[in-house]
């Protein structure tokens, strides 16, 4: 049996220390106190996903940046490539909340949207 990954379960406050092992081509989870731990661990090893939140530049707003998020969790491997793309973007105030900054990123069917509205800076 070989240890692939150690992780902490976040499904409930117990925070079990899980071990994902490979045994003759099968994944085996150790350390979980309930079934939900197995499901969590398998998702985390097969296709871990996260909502990504960051900011993009905005022209003429009350602040120079505006917060954005992915509309759904994206595979972890796409996090840094997405940040690269977003670093090149600049939008202009006024902007409503849930404005699509990027559509269908990496053909995942997921957008990047603003998480606040921002009005123009008054001179």
């Amino acid at each position: 049996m070989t240890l692939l990954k150690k992780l902490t379960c976040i499904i409930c406050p117990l925070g079990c220390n899980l071990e994902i092992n490979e045994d003759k081509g099968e994944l085996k989870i150790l350390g979980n106190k309930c079934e939900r731990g197995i499901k969590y661990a398998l998702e985390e090893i097969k296709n871990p996903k996260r909502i990504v939140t960051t900011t993009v530049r905005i022209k003429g707003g009350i602040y120079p940046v505006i917060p954005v998020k992915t509309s759904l969790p994206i595979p972890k491997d796409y996090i840094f490539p997405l940040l690269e793309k977003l670093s090149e973007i600049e939008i202009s105030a006024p902007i409503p909340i849930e404005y699509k900054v990027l559509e269908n990123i990496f053909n995942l069917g997921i957008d990047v949207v603003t998480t606040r509205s921002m009005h123009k800076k008054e001179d």
Partner: protein
Amino acid sequence: MLKETDIVIIGGGPGGLASAFSAGREKLRILIIERGEELGGILQQCIHPGFGLLYFKEELTGPEYAERWIKEVEKINNIEIWKKTMVLELYPDKKLIAVNDKGLWEIRPKAVILAMGCRERTHGNLAIPGTRPAGIFTAGTAQRLVNMEGYLPGEKILILGSGDIGLIMARRLKLEGAEVVGVVEKLSFPGGLTRNLVQCLEDFNIPLFLSHTVVEIKGRERLEGVYIAPVDSYGNPIISNKRFIQCDTLLLSVGLIPENELSEIAEIPIDNKTLGPFVDQFLMTEREGFFACGNVLLVNDLVDYVSFQGLIAGECAVKYIKGVIKRERKIPININGNLRLVVPQFISYPIILPEITFYFRVSEPKYNSVLHLKSGNKIIKTWKYPIVKPAEMIVLKINSSVFEETDNITFSMEEK
């Protein structure tokens, strides 16, 4: 200038917004006083997700959570909002002195809701030996710089304290391209929520040094690095084992302090456990007509709790003005065992509300605990907890009938 109104809410963050929303449903005149340029308070810089799971049953970012409440509050005609206005004085007779670009105001309300939130413990509070170079920030200041002002505070970052803001900033700075060399925690257990330990540190392989602290700061103009050392079981650093960690930025995430200077001017008694006012189930302080909610009352781990408290404070401020709340007698809530604090700290009779929500924090992490509610020596109710942690509040809604026929109430957290 003189301003008369029914309820003044000091602070336009989540606590103030929720209390305005609930008080505003009755046709009273409400005034929110906010010192910042916009409503929403600290939520506006908390751009990460994880807000609203209890209140809205969905996961929102801080600004989204704020914007939902702001929209609701702005719809209510009898709520007046003064931004960029600072309350300077608050008197025991509820008179306030505030200042804004129109001048100095004397405000006379019938009830006051304290919703000033909290601030971060700073470098000065810690007294770490060494030099005083640039590059030392509280985690929340760094959060505002990155998420709102668009600045990166440094390139190689060490974080002292494993509170949630520190953990969240570890991830945020990593995403912005900085190197995060580690998080140092003096206690033997982390300060933040497990979810944040996993998704902010483990996801990015950022090391967590438990039972360690920063013992010396190095650098003349800009921070060049810090010495960290392990601590013994009494929390004293073992200096002989210190080692140098190179970094240009040190972030402090070492605790939050409820901002009660105004409460103190108004001679409102403060609990030295919560650092917020003593309150009853109405969230009314010991001084009649003053209510408190959110992080000025106690530091909460979820904004949803802040909103729930705001709703109660708003509703009860209205009841107070209408003469529904009598407070004929009161009894203290005693706590025992592993419990460190409780809110509310006392119950006023008649209780009036159908249920009372209690907030607790424990002193130490423990497995298999039971929480007993006792009347005198008799156990009335028991709750079981497979695990309790200081970082995670315990919240219980209890039917008020339990408290009707008793004059001695104790909550006790014990090991099974």
